[in-house]
Structure formats: structure tokens, C-alpha cells
């Protein structure tokens, strides 16, 4: 039986004053029991109750008014690590408004809400693994666990595949953001190439002239039993 060595949590690097996280108390200590894939296969449909509506991926039009901030188009492709597109994945995003404030009771940031922006969107990847959102560039905000850390501008991504085994949570950062080096989540990624994966690229082809700036954020799934779109 192989022991499972991937971490549940990544400790913050030096330079952040956050107290050590006690993994003994909060995360599993025993190695995973490795079982054959055929025994764990459960392909539940992602459709039904959770099916996105046609405008769920346009965060600019979810209210009567126009949201504050820089309007952007975010698009990209979801693939496995072989470059094969992953279709029909439910992509859910959540983010702060332009002031760095979330529509969430737990957000302690003393910043204003935007009555015209919620910050939640969802869509399904198409046959080529592609998704698109229209939204605003979120504001940065101080991190509640460490006053010396800031969350750089970012959009959270939650991906849900057909099986329960296909769950992936990541986030998109913005290129050229000077706060990337002070961001505790980005800083936990030890490998520079992997860190770069979190940073979207400016994509003028995806921009809507005069309306949005375009960004491309491709997502490469690793460590999941991803289902390729075509064989």
C-alpha cells in the first residue's frame, strides 16, 4: 500500500508573522487508504439543481446598475496535465468588489459594499474545456490572520467535475501586481513555475474594445483523475 504524501496544508514561509498552524489537531495524520479506481468511481451529474443560467457568468449585469471598478473579461481553458481539455466542469468563482470587500458576513474589512456587485459567478466549460466570465478587477485587502500580509488582487475558482473525485480549488492572480510577494497564499507555493500558473496573462484578444480588459487564465488540473473531453 502506497502512503499518500501530498500535504493537506502548506505552511507559510518565513517573513510572515502568522502563528504556526497545528496540523496535528486539524488535518488527517494517517496515510490515505489507496483503493482501486473502480471501487471509488462515482460519476454524479453536475447538472440539475446547480445548472448555471445563461447570464450567471456575467457579474457586471447581475444588478440594475453598473458595478464600480475596472471591467474585465476573464477566460481560459481547463485541461489535465497532458493538455487534454476537461469539458462540462462546473466553474464557480467568488471575489471581492473593487474596494476589496466581499459580500459575506465574515468579512471584517472596513470597506464599502457595491450595491451593483455581488462577486459570484458560475458557468460550465464547453467541449474545448473553455470558460468565460465578465467581472471587475477586485481590490486587494489586508489578511485577517496577519497584519503584515495582504491578499493581492485575486479571484477564487472552485471546479466541480462529474465525480466527487474531481474537485479543484485555486485562484487567479493579476500580472504585475506588486502585492504578490506579500500575499500569504501565493507565498505558500514553493515552486516558482507553479506560482506563475496562478498569474493570468493580459489578453488583448479577449478584451471587449472600449469596455473590458481581457485576461487569460488557463487551469491545469493535477492530482485528480480528470476526464478528457475527447478520446
Amino acid at each position, binding site marked *: 500500500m502506497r502512503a499518500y504524501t501530498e500535504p493537506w496544508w502548506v505552511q507559510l514561509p518565513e517573513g510572515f508573522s502568522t502563528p504556526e498552524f497545528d496540523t496535528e489537531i486539524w488535518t*488527517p495524520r494517517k496515510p490515505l487508504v489507496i483503493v482501486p479506481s473502480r471501487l471509488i468511481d*462515482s460519476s454524479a451529474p453536475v447538472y440539475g439543481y446547480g445548472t448555471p443560467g445563461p447570464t450567471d457568468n456575467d457579474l457586471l449585469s447581475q444588478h440594475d446598475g453598473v458595478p464600480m471598478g475596472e471591467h474585465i473579461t476573464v477566460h481560459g481553458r481547463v485541461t489535465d496535465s497532458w493538455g487534454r481539455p476537461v469539458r462540462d466542469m462546473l466553474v464557480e468563482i467568488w471575489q471581492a468588489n473593487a474596494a476589496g470587500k466581499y459580500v459575506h458576513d*465574515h468579512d471584517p474589512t472596513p470597506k464599502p459594499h457595491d450595491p451593483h456587485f455581488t462577486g459570484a459567478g458560475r458557468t460550465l466549460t464547453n467541449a474545448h474545456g473553455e470558460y468565460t466570465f465578465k467581472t471587475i478587477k477586485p481590490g486587494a485587502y489586508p489578511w485577517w490572520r496577519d497584519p503584515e500580509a495582504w491578499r493581492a488582487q485575486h479571484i477564487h475558482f472552485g471546479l466541480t467535475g462529474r465525480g466527487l*473525485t474531481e474537485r479543484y480549488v485555486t485562484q487567479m492572480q493579476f500580472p504585475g501586481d506588486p502585492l504578490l510577494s506579500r500575499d500569504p497564499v501565493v507565498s505558500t507555493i514553493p515552486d516558482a513555475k507553479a506560482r506563475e500558473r496562478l498569474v493570468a496573462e493580459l489578453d488583448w484578444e479577449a478584451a471587449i474594445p472600449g469596455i473590458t480588459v481581457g485576461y487569460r487564465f488557463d487551469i*491545469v488540473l*493535477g492530482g485528480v483523475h480528470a476526464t478528457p473531453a475527447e478520446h
Partner: protein
Amino acid sequence: MTTTAGDRDGAATASSDRLVPTPRTILGPYFTLGMHVRPTLQPAGHQVPITVSGRVLNALGEPVMMTMVETSQPEGWTRYFTGLDGAYVITTVKPQATPGRAPHLLLLVMSGNFMIRPAVTCLYFPDEDNDTDELLQQLSPEQRATMLARRTDIGYEFDIHLAGDSETTFLGWPGLLDDEE
């Protein structure tokens, strides 16, 4: 080849060309804004609705809040988030036995603040014949015991112990180990 024309990354053609995976990150404290709750799977036809509830607990037996709990089965899936009391409650349908497998729910748990990947286990039912289940047969009695729900007046109860002496048996499978290569 399986990719579409016009890929910017191009498709990997040999194992040395495999793409660097996008790092996993935590859900963070605000994930309920974007990831929708769906605590009920509506029964269809002759499916029997059941309620499954329990708590997510740490090694000290304390409730773990802001944690995503999902169930999955061929009939569909549910999703719930724990609050201060660490409790979850979902309504789904009783799964069917399949060849080699007793009725079970796949159950996923991922804490918002400190887990970058979900932990997965199987929930089994005390009122079913579990002896012939091929997965349970591979496990010790102690491991099996952590995967068995309790019958209650309103349905089934299943606490998830993330750590500690009572740690739930969590499962991996070969596909999960891709990034060790």
C-alpha cells in the same frame, strides 16, 4: 491527439512535456459566496429520501466551522457548509447496492481555512449487508468502524473526525497520485 486546434499551450506529447499543474489553494473564509449550497437531492421515481447529518470535528473533538461537506452517488450530489457548531445536514436518496459494493455515499470534506485538497471517505449504512463490500474487505475492523453511520430517529448520523485517535478513514486512489510523478 485530443486537444483542439489553436491551443496556446499546445498539447503534451511526452511525459517530459507534461504541464505544470495549477497549484491548489484554500477555499478561504468567503467561499460560500460563490460555491452554492445544495443540501437536497430530490428523489425520483421509487427512490427513498434519507437525511444524513453529523458534525465535522478536529482531534480535540471540537467542531470545525466553514467546512464544505459533499456527498456523491450515481443519483446525484449534495453540498453543505458547516457553521460554528460544525454540523451538516443533507437530504439525499438511499443509494443502491452494486456488484461488489454495498450501498454507500462518497463523502468529501474540505475545510475552508486550512485544507488545499479535499478528504474523501465512504459512508456505509448500519441496516445494510456490508460484509460483501470489496472496499470494506480491504480494511481493518477499526478502519471500517469509522465509515459506518448510525441510525437515528430522523435518518443517519455520521461524524467526520479530521484528525486524532478517532480519525475517519480517508481514501485515495491511483488517479489522485498523479502529481507524485
